[in-house]
């Protein structure tokens, strides 16, 4: 669609195009939108015109009509390639799509892989397998404990492997310009029971935690991995994970100790949010393995991860 926002204050708009451009992205711009005569927006109307003028009651098959509608809808989508069919916008995918419904199907089937153990969802099967080895594989943990570099870089084709979660994190930020808020392994929100337990523990530990401590001896930074808006996990899976955590502790004290401490400290910040519906619609309420972390936390993590940087 060709968009030509026409401001009321046209002279000023010309003078500060850059400022306006920056604003346009972030803020709602209420302006008139003009469309060219041959804009695909008008395709449906043009078609109606021709059909009505020929006075034909069209016996198009249901399929034909659907095809037509799909084409029109697809053509109104402005894709960065500016062609009339859609391409999947997920980086590295480039799949060819006909219309919005196709995109939804495609996204669900290709870009959401879910872990059978903990139900987290990943956008690619590669990421899923990385997650499974890192979070649910004792063999993996064993290798890590013996000092093998096991944490793969998440970017396909990079191939670098690092020895710890944090150093991999750092690699992503340094080499691949991942946002600093990026966090591959998001801790799940524990059950209510867990929360109560940790809250009791929390009041005892409160004094020890400070936001700004960066050089924890055993690496348990107060990394507040942002759990607050993570959907809750099933109880049994959660405890399974905790068990797993305990197993890991025997194999790799440093790593696992960190994880447990992360959990306990982070849990203290949890709120009792409303229960989430258990539905299966596209994109609703699934736990995701990738998410954002706010800046303040990132700063801490960065400082904390420095001693462990490779």
């Amino acid at each position: 669609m060709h968009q030509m926002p026409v401001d009321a204050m046209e002279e000023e708009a010309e003078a500060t195009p850059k400022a306006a451009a920056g604003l346009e992205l972030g803020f709602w711009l209420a302006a008139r939108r003009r469309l060219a005569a041959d804009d695909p927006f008008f395709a449906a109307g043009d078609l109606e015109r021709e059909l009505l003028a020929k006075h034909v009651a069209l016996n198009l098959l249901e399929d034909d009509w659907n095809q037509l509608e799909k084409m029109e809808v697809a053509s109104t989508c402005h894709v960065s390639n500016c062609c009339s069919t859609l391409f999947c916008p997920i980086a590295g995918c480039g799949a060819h799509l006909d219309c919005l419904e196709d995109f939804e199907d495609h996204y669900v089937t290709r870009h959401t892989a879910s872990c059978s153990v903990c139900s987290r969802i990943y956008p690619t099967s590669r990421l899923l397998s990385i997650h499974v080895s890192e979070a649910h594989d004792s063999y993996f943990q064993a290798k890590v404990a013996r000092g093998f570099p096991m944490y793969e870089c998440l970017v396909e084709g990079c191939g670098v492997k690092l020895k710890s979660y944090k150093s991999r994190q750092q690699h992503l930020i340094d080499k691949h310009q991942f946002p600093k808020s990026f966090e591959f392994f998001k801790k799940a929100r524990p059950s209510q029971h867990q929360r109560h337990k940790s809250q009791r523990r929390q009041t005892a530990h409160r004094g020890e935690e400070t936001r700004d401590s960066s050089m924890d001896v055993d690496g348990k930074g107060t990394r507040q991995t942002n759990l607050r808006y993570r959907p809750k996990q099933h109880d049994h899976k959660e405890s399974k994970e905790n068990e797993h955590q305990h197993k890991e502790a025997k194999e790799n004290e440093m790593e696992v100790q960190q994880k447990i401490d992360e959990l306990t400290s982070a849990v203290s910040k949890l709120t009792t949010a409303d229960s989430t519906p258990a539905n299966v619609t596209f994109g609703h309420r699934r736990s995701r393995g990738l998410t954002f972390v706010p800046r303040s936390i990132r700063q801490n993590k960065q400082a904390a991860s420095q001693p462990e940087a490779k």
Partner: protein
Amino acid sequence: MADGSASGSPSSASPHQHHRDAIKSSVHNSASSRRREHAIAVGKERREALMRAKRVCRAPLSGSDETAMEEGDMVIDEEKADLEARTAQAVEELKSALSTQYISTIETSFCANLVLGILFDSLNIIELKSAFINHSMCPLLKFPCSGGKGAQKKKIEVLRALRRLLSQSEVPPVEAAIKAGAIPLLVQYLSFGSSDEQLLEAAWCLTNIAAGEPEETKSLVPALPLLIAHLGEKSSTLVAEQCAWAIGNVAGEGADLRSKLLAQGALWPLARLMLSNKGSTARTAAWALSNLIKGPDPKAANELIGIDGVLNAIIRNLEKADEELATEVAWVVVYLSALSEKATSLIVRSSVPQLLIGRLLASENLQLLIPVLRSLGNLVAADGYMVDSVLIVGNSITDQALSSLIKCLKSENRVLKKEASWAMSNIAAGSFEHKKLIFASEAMPSLMHLLTTAQFDIRREAAYTLGNLCVVPAGNAEPPNIIVDHLVAIVNGGALPGFINLVRSADIESARLGLQFLELVMRGYPNGQGPQLVEREDGIEAMERFQFHENELMRNLANGLVDKYFGEDYGLE
């Protein structure tokens, strides 16, 4: 093969009986499957023909003498080969009828008497004959060659035969006609001084040839100068109308042919025809004009509005004409307003907007509603004068405009809903008064409904409208001011899922729109409840989609919002 064996196999022996039955059924199958394939092919061609901006002329023009005489029915399911053969033959007859003309002319016409003297002297009969045949524009022949009345009649007969083949078949045998060489012959039949009937039939044939595939339309190029010439004021109205139709078909093909027609001067005569008192002529001319000026080059539109009397004719027709004529005139307005700044500024200052709104309110005819609505949409979008000075809040025209748009929003038709939402979004981008007016009107429930339930493209327009109602632009360097009442009502009315759905869409524009609205909600919803509301509708998850998105701007936008509103303070009581 199957046929051969069927006829060759012996009869009555029972084991062979089965054999023969099997063969017969395979014959039957192949014939019926052929018929079915033919039907499918015809169906497909027919569908494509329906979608073209060209129109086949099937019946004599109104007012034509033939209306009483002609009763040709549509011939359906013509075997293609048969049709093509007849067409080729018809073209052959065209050819021979042409050469007969000259012979009979020489024998009996007035101008021939002048020549006879020379003939007897020079005995160069053959040369002269060929000279006559080659120079169809020979000044001598400008005399009406009414002599050879027999020849005249013959010419019209053969033309009529071809014309019938081209107008009564379901899929006219255009390709066959062109291959047989019809076009150059028809050009000759269009020569100056030909009888009206002849011109009419020839132009009719050309009209239907031009209504075919792109290549077929392009083959009309040699005929264009003559067709344009016969639009002239001295031509009979019927002839002019038929030529206009042919030109309309050519113009409907593509931008190249349009510029060629314009270069050859088609615009003025067509505009003059549109001013005609005869309804069908004006209608055909208006339709041809709409095809001619539709651009993308705005030159034609600019020229058209400059012609004296055109705007007045438009006004007159929008006001009084029947719906068919008003429809075509409205399409002219559509293209004038979409392409020409000059036209737009003249139109918004005339009575056209009021007339368009009146038509939009009064008519139920979809054919008329579509161009009228689009014209209004174009006018509102293109020229601020419409929203600032014509549709002033408080004037009755504004209330009528709003009612007419609401009528379209509520209609069943997808095109009306979409284009009305677009028009309304542009009005909602106007002054604070406009926003209040729309907010208080019956448009709101319709818009909310469209946002959640309609097809994607309509949802987007509804989203634009609702969002526009919530903001008043601030200075250039500042985020827009939020109209909290409107925002609260819209969010409480259940609009958030609709916007979040847009964030999830594959289209970048729409996703950006959704994110921008979420920004408004999170910033402007009172008591800081915005983020919670967004979270409750899975807004965060939708924003996270942009984590791996290829578009950096979208990534930053989404990241920024999540960082800002779902920071570590989020959720703390």
